């Protein structure tokens, strides 16, 4: 039973870590669906949101505010920073680039990534800032069934719950609100949406804002887990295979893709890692994504790609 217990432990920690990948991947999917822009800056936005949050929080705590009040101030401040970013990106980068092809827009978001990474660290500092938002210790479950029990870290569970709330919230926003319907209309067809009076500028601002807020949520969880630091931006790269597996245009795909990647790489690391030298977490997700691509080029949940001449 020890072996099975160990397997369960690896699986659960992998699935929960996968949820956190999904949080970053969600931001990508939202922007890609609504504007066809492959937003490379999502990782940088997580960093920016995290830095804004943790710096405002530290300042407020230093001024003698109670911790929960400081958290609220920090969240509001970070949200304000993200909406300003969304506005600036839409106004100065994507607005002038309307109707360019996908590659140009992708490159532009890499440019935005540089600006945000440099700017965020210039404004808010470039060190590692701990963010004590959630408990970081662990539970031991099923101690009677398995020897030593199954170790589940609390922060991962928090992350899972937050992701669930976020997905439900986004689903409601997309299905039930007027703006959400407009977003879906734009995703379906830009020109048709414009012709019925939907403002593209406004919609793109909203999309980037929502992606920014998703980044903020991801930053609270990742920041607690790793501390707010520059290496958070590499998460963006981890979210890419998640997207490939789930499909670029599917919100459930981002979640399932995250789970597959998280669980897959933890299991691979635990069972294959020792025999081929360890550290295979580093590339496993990408090779997995490659395998999925060969079988299903549009990802598991993506819309079927139909091409005409």
């Amino acid at each position, binding site marked *: 039973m020890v072996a099975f217990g160990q397997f369960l432990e690896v699986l659960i920690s992998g699935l929960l870590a996968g949820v956190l990948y999904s949080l970053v991947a969600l931001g990508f999917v939202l922007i890609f669906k609504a504007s066809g822009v492959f937003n490379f800056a999502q990782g940088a936005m997580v960093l920016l949101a995290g830095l804004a949050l943790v710096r405002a929080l530290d300042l407020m705590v230093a001024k003698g505010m109670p911790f929960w009040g400081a958290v609220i101030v920090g969240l509001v401040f970070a949200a304000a920073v993200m909406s300003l970013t969304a506005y600036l990106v839409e106004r100065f980068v994507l607005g002038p680039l309307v109707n360019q092809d996908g590659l140009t827009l992708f490159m532009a978001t890499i440019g935005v990534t540089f600006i945000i990474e440099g700017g965020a660290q210039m404004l808010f500092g470039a060190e590692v800032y701990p963010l004590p938002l959630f408990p970081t210790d662990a539970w031991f479950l099923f101690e009677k069934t398995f020897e030593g029990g199954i170790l589940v870290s609390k922060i991962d569970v928090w992350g899972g719950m937050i992701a669930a709330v976020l997905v439900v919230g986004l689903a409601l926003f997309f299905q039930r609100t007027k703006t959400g319907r407009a977003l879906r209309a734009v995703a379906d067809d830009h020109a048709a949406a414009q012709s019925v009076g939907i403002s593209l500028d406004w919609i793109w601002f909203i999309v980037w804002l929502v992606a920014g807020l998703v980044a903020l949520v991801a930053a609270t969880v990742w920041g607690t887990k790793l501390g707010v630091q520059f290496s958070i931006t590499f998460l963006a790269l981890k979210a890419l295979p998640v997207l*490939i597996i789930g499909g670029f245009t599917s919100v459930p795909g981002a979640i399932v893709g995250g789970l597959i990647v998280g669980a897959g790489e933890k299991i691979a690391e635990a069972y294959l890692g020792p025999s081929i030298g360890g550290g295979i977490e580093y590339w496993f997700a990408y090779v997995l994504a490659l395998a999925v691509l*060969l079988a299903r*080029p549009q990802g598991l949940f993506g819309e079927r790609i139909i091409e005409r001449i």
Partner: protein
Amino acid sequence: MLYRETGQFKTSYAADMAIFPIRQDRIALYVLLAIAFIGIPVLDALQVWPFAGEYLLRAILIPFLILSLAAVGLNILTGYCGQLSLGSGAFMAVGAYSAYKFGTGVHLPLGLFDIAIPALPVLPSILLGGVMAAAVGILFGVPSLRIKGLYLAVATLAAQFFFDWVFIRVQWFTNYTSSGSVTAPELNFFGLIVNKPVERYLLCLIFVTVVALLAKNLVRGNIGRQWMAIRDMDIAAELMGIRPLYAKLTAFAISSFIMGIAGALWAFVYLGSWEPLAFNIDRSFQILFMVIIGGLGSILGSFLGAAFILVLPIMLDQVPHALGIPISVETVSLLVFVVTGALICWLLIVEPHGFARLWLTGKEKLRLWPYPY
């Protein structure tokens, strides 16, 4: 007035199909080559400003040449064949480490039979490094037959991360050095030992000239046209009788070959001793930037883009010093990030087709000047 092709009649097919059909272009190219091959070494020998010391050669011209080579390689794949790749760093790394292994002797015990190749001279090592990179390029090019665009970009990221890991973890590639960093063998070309910066510069220049000429001719020929047809619309190209398998994989092979050579040069000639980090994802992005900023589908653009992306951070680094503004080193490096990002966005907005398009526009204007028709 000077740049006018009036009176230059083409009297043979060969003249009509020349690389540079306009005489002024040819003259400009010869002048450029003369400056590069004769002028710069002479100036270096005289130690005239800005060649005093070795800074310009060592820190700007040599990396510029090598990265231009890599950019030419990526441009063949992305600019001419339309296959987006984020794995340039990996292909460069494969070239560098293969060249290193061939240069120091390959010994691979496989149980039943051992592969043992004695240490090869530098030139065959570098070329074989390119060949190995081409083989890897073909392997990672196979997915391109099913997927394209940004999906393919992520697939090439798999190559990037996989090889990052391989060269860190598999110690066979680094000859079991404890630090993981390896040192290039002596650059001995048929008894001629390349050591001084100016010699290294000339070595890179020869490689770059030969490869750029080959690349320019390839993209003008049959295979180049096949690549461009695939880029413009792959289904239509297939219906016209172009085999996507052949066209895409040759693009991957040739592009990776060039990038492999660039990687081997980067390691052997520029760095001397290096770690896997020298070829990480940042390198891939740097080369992609060069290609996009320079202009997709233009050999000249690769050089312009390489110059811009390489020189920009150096200039930005110098400006606050020159103006005497006291800024900490850290702030400067962050500022370089911001300004680079902003310039890239700005360039994409004003000229999405890169410097190469600006060059073409300027050329048109010159040909018509002073009458705008």
